[in-house]
């Protein structure tokens, strides 16, 4: 395939990035009408005259969507415009019922922000500032299903079937300024930026940020210029970049593709390209014979958004801690090793662990429950941890029962299983299942005596000071008490009984 390596590219060219991220907000209703936004509903069951663009229907702005957008702007260090307006972006496309998209043009709601991201470089961790040009509101389009033809793709299809459930779902577009100066780390920086955005948006609670469901989508603009040059190269815009890994791959791939063309003395075409998950390459979108002219003008069916300072400050006061700072703080507070921290972030249990700790649980114990047994059960059931019937409160309670010696680790696992199976709170599970640590010494002594009687030779060995032999006797006692005894206590009593106390 390509003779050019990534190292060849970066030794000669500097990449310049521009990233546009679309976020579907998680409002209950659509941007301009009261239709539900639930993902995966039957086709065209979440539509109305407004989102189907029936003649005469009019849009009304969802207040929650405006608040979410302002929150995003604030979290990205943007200024909130004292006056902003919606504008119509006019172009014809069957998945867009009005044949114009209500968007924002020269008066977006948030401008001029930044996000700092940190990546591992050859010289250790390094921070990059990504400047945000604007954050604006718009609406999503419907979904088309292409029927006929061989590929199932748009080209070659005989006809298309349209479902407008998604049409009108609020979208926020976050646009960076051009990002120069990332050099060979451009793909990693872009990935880290999208990941940081995802974490910020998740912390704000304004979106599901599920890239695989399309609630977070990234378009990556890439251009190359000779190192040292001030002139920007021609850019390509890659769409369909639907995972963090793809962000990195798409940018790397585009850098190599551009460099190959430039090295051959060919021009890079300014065009839209589509990322192919399977190959990691991009494919040219159908280039339009003539450029579109969107004929933006202020949306006459809507009135300006003029947020007063009080409203903005109220929203600002409710901003959560920046995810990167919070991660650092928690890692320090809980003394978590880097690898474990990464595992927690990956498994998305940071929030629930924190909640459990705030309820009094030991951080290490809380972490090990959520990351261990509970994650394992969630994987088994193939559901998200948050979808399980166990709460931070349940886990905190279990951790506390173990600490008090009311439960052994083994019993605690049974309680966790019970809670997840929907049997109730830990207390209810314990009582219903009859789970109890046997800590009645006389009951234990009876079991110990009977074990020693059953295995007199082993008992003798212990009496003679051969302590490892005690394990077999402890095992019998534990079996006898169905694991409900505290093994440490059994050992203590057994050794005492056989004249080896103090060891």
């Amino acid at each position, binding site marked *: 395939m390509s003779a050019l390596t990534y190292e060849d590219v970066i030794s000669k060219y500097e990449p310049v990035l521009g990233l546009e991220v679309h976020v579907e907000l998680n409002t209950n209703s659509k941007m301009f009408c009261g239709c539900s936004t639930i993902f995966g509903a039957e086709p065209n069951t979440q539509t109305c005259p407004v989102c189907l663009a029936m003649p005469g229907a009019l849009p009304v702005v969802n207040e929650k969507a405006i608040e979410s957008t302002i929150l995003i702007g604030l979290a990205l260090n943007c200024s909130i415009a004292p006056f902003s307006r919606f504008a119509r972006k006019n172009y014809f496309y069957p998945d867009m019922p009005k044949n114009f998209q209500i968007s924002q043009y020269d008066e977006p709601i948030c401008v001029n922000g930044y996000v700092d991201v940190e990546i591992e470089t050859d010289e250790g961790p390094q921070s990059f500032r990504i400047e945000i040009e604007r954050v604006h509101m718009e609406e999503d389009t419907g979904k088309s299903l292409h*029927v006929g033809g061989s590929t199932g793709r748009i080209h070659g299809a005989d006809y298309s079937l349209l*479902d407008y459930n998604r049409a009108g779902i609020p979208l926020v577009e976050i646009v960076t300024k051009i990002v120069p100066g990332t050099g060979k780390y451009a793909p990693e920086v872009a990935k880290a930026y999208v990941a940081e955005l995802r974490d910020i948006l998740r912390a704000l609670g304004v979106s599901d940020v599920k890239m695989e469901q399309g609630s977070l989508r990234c378009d990556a603009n890439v251009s190359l210029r000779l190192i040292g040059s001030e002139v920007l190269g021609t850019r390509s815009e890659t769409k369909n970049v639907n995972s963090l890994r793809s962000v990195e791959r798409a940018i790397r791939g585009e850098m190599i593709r551009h460099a190959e063309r430039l090295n051959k003395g060919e021009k890079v075409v300014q065009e839209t390209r589509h990322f192919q998950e399977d190959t990691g390459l991009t494919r040219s979108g159908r280039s339009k014979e003539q450029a579109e002219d969107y004929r933006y003008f202020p949306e006459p069916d809507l009135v300006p958004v003029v947020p007063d300072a009080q409203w903005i400050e109220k929203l600002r006061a409710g901003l959560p801690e920046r995810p990167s700072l919070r991660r650092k703080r928690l890692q320090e507070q809980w003394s978590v090793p880097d690898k474990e921290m990464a595992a927690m972030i990956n498994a998305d249990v940071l929030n629930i662990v924190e909640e459990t700790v705030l309820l009094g649980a030991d951080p290490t114990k809380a972490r090990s429950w959520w990351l261990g047994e509970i994650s394992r059960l969630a994987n088994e059931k193939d559901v998200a941890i948050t979808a399980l019937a166990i709460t931070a409160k349940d886990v905190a309670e279990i951790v506390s029962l173990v600490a008090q010696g009311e439960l052994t680790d083994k019993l605690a696992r049974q309680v966790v299983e019970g809670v997840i199976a929907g049997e109730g709170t830990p207390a209810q599970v314990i009582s219903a299942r009859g789970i109890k640590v046997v800590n009645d010494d006389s009951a234990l002594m009876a079991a110990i005596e009977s074990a020693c009687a059953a295995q007199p030779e082993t008992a003798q060995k212990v009496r003679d000071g051969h302590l490892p032999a005690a394990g077999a006797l402890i095992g019998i006692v534990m079996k006898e008490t169905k694991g409900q005894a505290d093994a440490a206590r059994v050992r203590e009593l057994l050794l005492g009984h056989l004249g080896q106390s103090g060891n």
Partner: protein
Amino acid sequence: MSSLSRDDVANLARLARIEMTDQELENLTTEFAVILNAVARVQEVATTDVAATSHPLPLKNIFRSDVVIPSLTPEEALSGAPASEEQRFRVPQILGEEA
């Protein structure tokens, strides 16, 4: 400046998604010469110190609460569709960019 060529008019028709006959394009080119001359008068008084009015009333911040209200039934939604299939609007093959 207020004159359009036939090609300009054809390009407008393309942007507006209207197939036009040669005769229509001819007629419109002639009519636009007259009409544009008349409407260009707005430039006589539209000086930079005048603010633009896009809306007759000084309204602002009109919102609805984020509450779900019942949608149309799919039958109602599709009732006017020229063609439908599998509870979806059936449309001719879409050329152009992949969505």
